[in-house]
């Protein structure tokens, strides 16, 4: 993948701790560039999750909060209600958002909380060393599904974007991916749009980003991209799930 990066004011010039090839870094950049282009870095407050991106508070140049595992949307709610003119986002992994933090994200969306959530779905718990996530695909082997995820015993993966798009408080929900240059550009557009709608005061906005975890998938970065394309995209179809600014979206 040939993506050339200009430095962005949205990120601090520090080395990150992410594994080689991990796409968390790209996603950070897309968020940071969007904030910079919208000229809102100064009034943005981000909320970091518990997961591999726990140290995101060291990387984003805006003010940051660190939340307990899964609670970022509640923390963001507290921030936005205190400082209604600010731009508030959460950045969360699939364990953080779709397992332990399910209640918080569902209710933030249902309340139409004027925040933006960036949801990084890599089908696994990265930080703790590769356990099953709520988004782990059927049959996928992880540290806690050593015989492959058996949906009869361990349940089915959650399509979070589709689920949240049923809630009236959510105004914009899109699933994107960072597996190719074209998709990275689309992801950027989606993230920027989500922030724009937040700034316009429309309601809750949500962008799910399909991401890779070479380390815990046990694949090279290149193989991981292919695995994402072959396995994740068919299960988690890309596209806009809801957009109140467009009348009809399937």
């Amino acid at each position, binding site marked *: 993948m040939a993506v050339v990066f200009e430095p962005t004011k949205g990120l601090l010039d520090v080395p990150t*701790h992410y*594994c*080689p090839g991990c796409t968390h870094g790209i996603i950070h950049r897309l968020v940071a560039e969007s904030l910079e282009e919208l000229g809102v870095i100064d009034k943005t407050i981000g909320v970091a999750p518990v997961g591999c991106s726990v140290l995101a508070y060291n990387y984003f140049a805006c003010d940051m909060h660190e939340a307990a595992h899964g609670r970022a949307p509640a923390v963001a709610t507290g921030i936005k209600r205190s400082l209604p003119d600010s731009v508030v986002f959460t950045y969360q992994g699939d364990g953080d958002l779709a397992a332990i933090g399910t209640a918080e994200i569902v209710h933030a969306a249902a309340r139409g909380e004027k925040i933006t959530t960036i949801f990084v779905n890599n089908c696994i718990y990265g*930080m703790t060393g590769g356990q099953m996530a709520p988004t782990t695909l059927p049959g996928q082997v992880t540290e806690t599904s050593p015989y492959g995820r058996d949906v009869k015993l361990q349940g089915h993966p959650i399509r979070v974007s589709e689920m949240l798009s049923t809630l009236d408080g959510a105004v914009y929900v899109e699933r994107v991916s960072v597996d190719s240059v074209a998709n990275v550009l689309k992801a950027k557009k989606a993230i920027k749009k989500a922030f724009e709608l937040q700034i316009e005061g429309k309601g809750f906005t949500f962008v799910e980003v399909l991401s890779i975890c070479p*380390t815990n998938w046990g694949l090279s970065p290149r193989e991981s991209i292919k695995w994402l394309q072959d396995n994740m995209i068919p299960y988690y179809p890309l596209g806009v799930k809801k957009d109140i600014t467009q009348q009809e979206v399937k």
Partner: protein
Amino acid sequence: MAHQDIIFAGFGGQGILSMGKFLAYAGMEENLNVSWLPSYGPEMRGGTANCSVIVSDDNIGSPIVYDATTVVVMNRPSLDKFEHSVVKGGLLIIDSDLVNREAERTDIDVIKIPAQKVAEEVGSKKIANMVLLGALVEKTKIVKMESLLKALKEHGKEQFYEMNKKALEKGAEYARK
């Protein structure tokens, strides 16, 4: 009295933790007391890895090694970090293919082995750890080589046994030099 407090240190993926494990198994083979304590956490991701191993005919107190009778290092940061943990008269084993400086200490035994090269000759760079372990066992005599081989046979991968055995022997030669 048989007693060794050992630190193995290097990068993740070099077999640092398994080196320690095989030695612990070999110690058990001889009815010695053993403990093995790894570093853990996100720094393990391609970063540094180390473990403390104690082999003793006495009861083992703390499993953490502060003052090591032997230190094995497989990269420069580990040498910088642990050179001063070796007790006076102790042993420092260095993979000289990966560490680009000399040891500073003069009050300890230092064995330098081009372990990457030696391992490659034997079959694969991946078993450089075994070369170093061979030297450790030969020099300290903390366990018999047969016990270590038995541990490898029982707990290692079958298909690597012969290669590992050769690597251990090569390492032992360096210790005899």
